[in-house]
């Protein structure tokens, strides 16, 4: 099953990556250009049209690190963007995480369709800086991966079902592919591409101004997939992502994320990831998320703590 999906993906994937890469170049400058385009778009959009942004502000979440709608580190069951069941929304994001020894960046595009389906693409790159020299892979060696995501909302309305306990529930998958096949294999990864599968439940508790979210993810990704997938001795295992946020105002949300990760590679221990963040929604077209993160030990380099900033623009 996995193999079949993979081979199907492989074929279509190359062309898709080419197209998307030309839109979101690996260079931030290019993304800025896309964002400017995205931000000037709404003026051209009719108030009653497909892109009328009928959802309430902040209820599409922000782009999490893998490009899906969520918070900083965790995926939520909400569908990204401001399209209601009669509309759609498109987002571009750029995220940078400055850690003790590394820099992680992510750029991507996501689309929410009729508040039912979410499709996303993200390119991540992970600059090893001076640690690259210590690891013997060369100073400034950069790991990268592409992530294609799909999410479907199954049941529940996180915002409207305030008289029920049932959360909004979505299922999804990520196809992750390493850009450094030979190296991640040499580091002990069993695969150079892989699928994550998840089920996510998110509930807005308006009476308490709270958003609670939990996701169960079946994954074999080493350090989100940047260091390949699985190892000789381990494959997919079940992991949890938990998020709690307080809505100070409709535009200002602050919260904490906790995410468990696999620990597959023999050469380097991997730990859980944590973040505390503040997201500010300037309007429905632009949001900024700032966070303090702790990603634990990465590739033998002590505690990787740092600062996370993510800008999302959309229509």
């Amino acid at each position, binding site marked *: 099953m996995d193999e079949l999906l993979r081979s199907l993906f492989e074929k279509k994937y190359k062309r898709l990556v080419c197209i998307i890469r030309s839109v979101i170049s690996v260079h931030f400058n290019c993304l800025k250009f896309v964002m400017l385009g995205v931000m000037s778009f709404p003026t051209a959009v009719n*108030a009653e049209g497909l892109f009328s942004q009928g959802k*309430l502000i902040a209820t599409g979440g922000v782009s999490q690190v893998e490009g899906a709608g969520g918070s900083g580190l965790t995926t939520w069951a909400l569908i990204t963007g401001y399209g209601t069941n009669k509309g759609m929304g498109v987002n571009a994001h750029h995220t940078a995480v400055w850690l003790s020894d590394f820099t992680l960046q992510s750029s991507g595009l996501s689309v929410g369709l009729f508040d039912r389906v979410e499709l996303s693409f993200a390119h991540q790159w992970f600059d090893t800086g001076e640690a690259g020299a210590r690891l013997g892979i060369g100073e400034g060696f950069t790991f990268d991966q592409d992530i294609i995501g799909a999410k479907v909302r199954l049941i529940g309305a996180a915002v*409207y079902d*305030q008289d029920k306990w049932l959360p909004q529930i979505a299922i999804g998958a990520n196809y992750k592919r390493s850009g450094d096949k030979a190296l991640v294999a040499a580091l002990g990864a069993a695969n150079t591409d892989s699928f994550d599968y998840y089920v996510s439940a998110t509930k807005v*508790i*308006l009476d308490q101004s709270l958003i609670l979210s939990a996701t169960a993810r079946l994954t074999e990704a080493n350090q989100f997939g940047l260091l390949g997938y699985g190892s000789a001795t381990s494959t997919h295992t079940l992991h949890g992502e938990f998020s709690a946020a307080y809505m100070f*105002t409709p535009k200002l949300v602050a919260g904490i994320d906790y995410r468990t990760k696999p620990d597959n590679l023999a050469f380097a221990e991997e730990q859980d990831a944590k973040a505390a963040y503040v997201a500010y929604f300037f309007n429905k077209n632009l949001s900024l998320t700032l966070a303090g993160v702790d990603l634990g030990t990465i590739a033998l380099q002590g505690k990787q703590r740092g600062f996370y900033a993510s800008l999302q623009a959309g229509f």
Partner: protein
Amino acid sequence: MRILKVIISALIFNFFALNANAQSLYEKLGENPKIHKIMVRTLELSMEDERIAFTLERSDLDRLAQLLTDQTCELTGGPCKYEGVDMKKAHVGLGLTTGHFNALVEHLQQAMREENISNRTQNQLLALFAPMHRDVVEK
């Protein structure tokens, strides 16, 4: 041991004292005069919004503001009785969407902000209105 007793009785006393002081949502919203002001302003903003103005074209806005005030008052624990029709009947045939519903919510939020209602209190009221989405929205 005695200290423990003192602490426990202080806590119990506090609990009841706090509960006695706890304001109902109706009080936190500033009771009927303020609620009425908020509803009048919500409708005013809605009339200026091309997304939903047409849904109010044939309404008697004074009467609607009073109905909304009564409804809010009753929902939040105030001494009123809402005597309008139920939400489903009140909106039948208007073809309202989630976008329309949310537009009204946004105006209600702004009206409450203008009356300096705290964000927490605003959300507590929205929590009571949110389930009406099921009855109001047709498609």
